[in-house]
């Protein structure tokens, strides 16, 4: 991760009617990281993205992209950002290639071959001659990504980029985004309402609820850390295991279900426990930690309903 933030969001607020749909959001995003913007439906993700891209005017606050204010230096700011807001709608009566030619011109790209390059990156070289009208949703998403990468932006903003993609497509999108952040040093800003998806592709995740940025966490804090989480252990024989664990957690009542023991522990202690159990000749079939702080918070935010 670089030292200087590529995006500085400062006190960003959007008031629609009487409601602050986006409420005083402040966060910096750095080159080389994938930043996840996580929130339930209607939280204000798309509205934030629209303001970052100058489609909507901020009621208060501002966004700086590569040092340029979206409010005051719109043109310079837009030179350094590529993105998709909701669905990547393009001109259906033109081919994918012609659409890219159009956007390249508007971005002042004169280098020949850049279009072919981005088509190769997203694997759309073959179908770029077809009319966009005939594209599947997955193909549109790919072309959308190609369009956003044309001018080699420092910041890439994608609003729910995995929407409508199949599992293979999601994996591929994830790989693209990791590559762009790690190898090209881009700052990648992705929104989603799926925590599981975000954990796999992001370095940091910010949770937004009813317009407020509630929390920003490093994904890698999930591994290790001293805050307690729930550990599930599937072991045999279970009585021996319980005896050993009792020594470490004298005060805890462990919940046992079949061959699984459930207990609260800090992630830091997990390796030690496992070594000891294994040393005592106990077979460990499965060990899993969950209920990380981020998930807890997100569950609270979403009311524990099926969106996670």
């Amino acid at each position: 991760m670089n030292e200087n933030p590529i995006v500085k969001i400062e006190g960003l607020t959007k008031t629609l009617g009487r409601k602050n749909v986006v409420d005083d959001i402040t966060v910096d995003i750095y080159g080389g990281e994938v930043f996840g913007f996580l929130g339930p439906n209607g939280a204000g993700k798309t509205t934030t993205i629209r303001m970052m891209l100058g489609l909507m005017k901020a009621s208060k606050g501002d966004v700086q992209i590569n040092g340029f204010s979206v409010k005051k230096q719109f043109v310079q700011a837009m030179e350094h950002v590529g993105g998709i807001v909701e669905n990547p709608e393009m001109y259906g009566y033109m081919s994918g290639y012609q659409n890219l030619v159009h956007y390249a011109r508007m971005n002042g790209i004169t280098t020949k071959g850049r279009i072919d390059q981005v088509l190769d990156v997203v694997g759309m070289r073959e179908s770029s001659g077809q009319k966009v009208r005939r594209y599947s949703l997955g193909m549109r998403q790919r072309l959308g990504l190609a369009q956003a990468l044309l001018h080699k932006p420092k910041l890439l903003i994608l609003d729910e980029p995995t929407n409508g993609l199949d599992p293979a497509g999601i994996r591929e999108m994830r790989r693209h985004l990791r590559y762009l952040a790690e190898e090209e040093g881009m700052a990648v800003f992705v929104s989603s309402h799926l925590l599981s998806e975000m954990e796999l592709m992001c370095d940091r995740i910010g949770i937004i609820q009813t317009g407020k940025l509630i929390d920003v966490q490093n994904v890698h804090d999930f591994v290790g850390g001293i805050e307690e989480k729930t550990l599930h252990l599937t072991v045999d024989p279970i009585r021996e295991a319980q005896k050993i664990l009792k020594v470490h957690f004298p005060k805890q009542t462990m919940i046992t279900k079949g061959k699984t023991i459930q207990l609260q522990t800090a992630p830091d202690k997990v390796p030690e426990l496992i070594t000891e159990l294994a040393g005592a000749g106990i077979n460990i079939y499965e060990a899993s930690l969950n209920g990380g702080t981020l998930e807890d918070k997100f569950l609270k935010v979403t009311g524990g309903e099926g969106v996670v």
Partner: protein
Amino acid sequence: MAGILAVVIIGGALITLLNTEPPADNWRAEVQQQVEGDREALAEDPEAVFLQERLTLNNYRLDNDIAPINDATQWGFVDFVSILTMFVTLFTVIAATSSVAGEFTNGTIKLLLIRPVKRWMILLSKLIVSLFYAAGLLLLLFVTAYLAGGLFFGFQSPQLTTLYIDNGQVVEQSMAASIWAGYGLAMVNLVMMTIFAFMIAAIFRNSSIAIGLTIFLMFAGTNVVVFLSQYDWAKYILFANTDLRMYFGTGEPLIDGMTLGFSIVILAIYFAVFAFLTFFVFSKRDVAA
């Protein structure tokens, strides 16, 4: 659009060919015959203005040796077809509206407006393209009419003279001037309707609503103005001023006292207001499409 226009013109040429008697070899005899008929009719009804004017014109023709221009001749046809500029206006309004409102309806506006280009420049380029489109269609209309007229009725030198009556006096007008009034002045109307369509499109942001509303206002406006022409203030209405042909040739100003200069000033004011509103709304309003 261009195809439809060409088909309409060629169809028009065929119908004209079938329904109009070809120009007689001896036009003097024909005109003479009409003069005699008109005289007899006038003897019975001396107040018939139309017959009086036709008689005056025909006498002038015979005295000055100016042949009447038949619709079934090349230039007669070109002149006749100039009423089809109405279609050019219609097509231009549709194209102009969808080039702005369509981007919102289809959602393509988002990827368009996140480019490093000021919004007003994007709108200006759309306006320029729409005006070129209008001019192109107008040229196409003229060229197709010229060719169809030539092919169906035979090519002809444009050095012809048309006659009309102004304040009881017979006035000679060259064919070129009449054609210029028919086609060239249509461009003024096209420019006004294009900016009008842009304004409606920028405000409503929905192709069907914007196209429907623009066309409705355009036709309703033209008719309402005729209806209101008894009131003096009606001369300040946009649609009272868009058809500048009323100041040329056989045209009559819609309301007494209106002059070409007056209409040009009114049109310029409307244009400025429409353009300001369009650019203001397009540049400032949030895009939530």
